[in-house]
């Protein structure tokens, strides 16, 4: 855990609401991301997990400026914005790039591989001769043969396409790449190759990643810290080994126990019942309380705040006795 002194990205109280259908029977806004706060240091990987509809992808899209946040702030290297207009977002967007889930859709089928990668370079206004050199260098970085440059995406395998998507993201020289389920569509052997490639690039360039996945073993493998999201909020945050082996929040425990175990042992199962909540009509108090077996009376009236637990991670649950109520999960770093 070396160079982590410099904060790269910090997100404070970020909220993304989608308007409900307009008209006479206007519904409540959908709270896709609701007051999310976290921080990423240079060369670090943050994993984000949670079930479908927990706001992972909306958070990612808000960071690259596709979905406009309603409130909160994003700061990249101390350059803070809280007014999310296009002109304010532009300098930040260049520093953040994204690798998408579906390598069959994230490359324009009409562009050759070289053209797709060059698109990120043209933004930097490089002369044409330099673009060609850079495309070659980027193909080398993602360990693809230069002969693929003239091919179209349909001629490549899923793993190769994902490498092209990584090369395109790297072309803008970003500080952070968001991988939104970037290996979910790949088979297991290819998945490991792509994860290793991402780690190699991180070692070489000191780039940071936000790794969004529902696959907890992938997250534990690649990320230093992990955040568990539920209904648009971070419910648990901390060192990924700690959070995923010693989960504190009942929702995290349910997620972890749902992972199949190769030894076939049936451990303690923390089953959660019911469906993910309707984001336009969240339960009062803790959003997880209707599905939680251990819910208390306060759970349905008061929303829990993130507190530092005895294990050093942070969790938002009334059941957890705070180790030291720092109130802000930066404290987790100090006690780890």
């Amino acid at each position, binding site marked *: 855990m070396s160079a982590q002194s410099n904060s790269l990205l910090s997100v404070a109280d970020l909220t993304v609401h989608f308007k409900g259908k307009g008209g006479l029977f206007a519904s409540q806004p959908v709270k896709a991301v609701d007051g999310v706060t976290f921080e990423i240091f240079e060369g670090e990987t943050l994993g984000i997990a949670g079930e479908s509809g927990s706001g992972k992808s909306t958070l990612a899209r808000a960071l*690259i400026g596709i979905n406009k946040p309603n409130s909160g702030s994003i700061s990249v290297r101390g350059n803070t914005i809280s007014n999310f207009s296009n002109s304010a977002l532009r300098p930040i967007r260049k520093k953040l790039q994204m690798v998408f889930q579906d390598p069959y859709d994230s490359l324009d089928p009409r562009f050759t591989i*070289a053209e797709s990668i060059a698109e990120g370079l043209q933004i930097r206004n490089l002369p044409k001769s330099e673009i*060609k050199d850079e495309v070659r260098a980027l193909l080398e970085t993602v360990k693809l043969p*230069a002969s693929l440059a003239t091919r179209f995406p349909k001629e490549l395998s899923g793993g190769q396409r994902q490498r092209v998507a990584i090369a*395109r993201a790297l072309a803008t020289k970003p500080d952070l790449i968001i991988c939104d389920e970037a290996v979910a569509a790949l088979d297991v052997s290819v998945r490991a190759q792509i994860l290793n490639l991402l780690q190699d690039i991180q070692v070489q360039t000191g780039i940071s990643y936000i790794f969004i996945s529902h696959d907890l073993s992938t997250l534990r493998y690649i990320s230093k810290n992990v955040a568990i999201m539920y209904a648009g909020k971070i419910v648990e945050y901390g060192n990924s080994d700690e959070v995923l082996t010693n989960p504190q929040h009942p929702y995290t425990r349910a997620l972890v126990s749902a992972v199949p175990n190769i030894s076939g042992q049936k451990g303690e199962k923390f089953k959660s019942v019911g469906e993910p909540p309707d984001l336009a009509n969240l339960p009062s108090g803790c959003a997880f309380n209707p599905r939680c077996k251990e819910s208390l009376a306060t759970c349905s009236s008061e929303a829990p705040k993130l507190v530092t637990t005895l294990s050093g991670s942070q969790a938002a649950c009334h059941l957890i006795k705070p180790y030291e109520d720092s109130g802000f999960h930066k404290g987790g770093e100090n006690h780890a």
Partner: protein
Amino acid sequence: MHDQFEEVESSLDSVSLRSRAWSSLKADKIAFASVVIVLLLIFIAIFAPWFAPKKPLYQYPDGLSEIGAPQGPGKHFLLGADQNGRDVLSRLIFGARVSLTVGVVATALASFIGVTIGAISGYLGGWVESILMRLTDIVLSFPILLFCIALIAVTGPSTKNVVLVIAFAYWTYLARIIRSQVLSLKEREFVIAARSLGLTTPQIIRRHIIPHLIPTIIVYSTLGVATSILIEASLSFLGIGVPLPQPSWGEMISEGQKYFQSAPWLLVAPGVTMIIAVLAFNLMGDWLTDLFDTSSMGVKR
């Protein structure tokens, strides 16, 4: 290493569409025939005075028999003469001018309006979309022919008005189709990736949206030429199309059907010509769709 560099280089230049078009034409005889017919029609229409064997408007005394019946196809009048003794072939050739001008110009105008309105409302959404699409719905709710008749009644029959009226009625179809395509295109991951790369909205529309709309635009424009030719013929048939004595295929069919029993060539000649023209435009549209189709993009040479 040097070879690899050249491959990178050549890939950055766009793939030669011309060479793909040529090789697919050589393989597909129907496409080849339709393109030849369309090009021939355009060529004949442009150089009509050189192709027409006789004057289209002149009433030849020998075009009618002693009893006043029109002469059938023969050595003198290749496709026969009409009830006024005019040469049918020459009228068909000059009629091609009118039909193609109306068809192509009206469709080009309709496509331009339709693509612009469809792409803007699809990509921008919000109140812009609401206003433009309600406008489209209003125009779309009129029956096309009745709408044209009403407009012509107001503006008066002339070639220019026929073109404007057809364009004004036809753009709505394209606007709707383009809008729905843009709606799904703008959520595709490669468009979102382009946005996150920092491309501007005009750049994204030009590089990633419009190229994907080309097959649609071509298919509906080609169908549009065929439809416009038919609408023009219908208007001329009803006597409110291109004003007399200018020859047009619809007017020839309208006149010809009166004498169908005694002089069938007056109906058959313009009818068959129009079927061939409409069919050729439709088949050429099919071929162009295949040519631009993404699934065949990867197969080169």
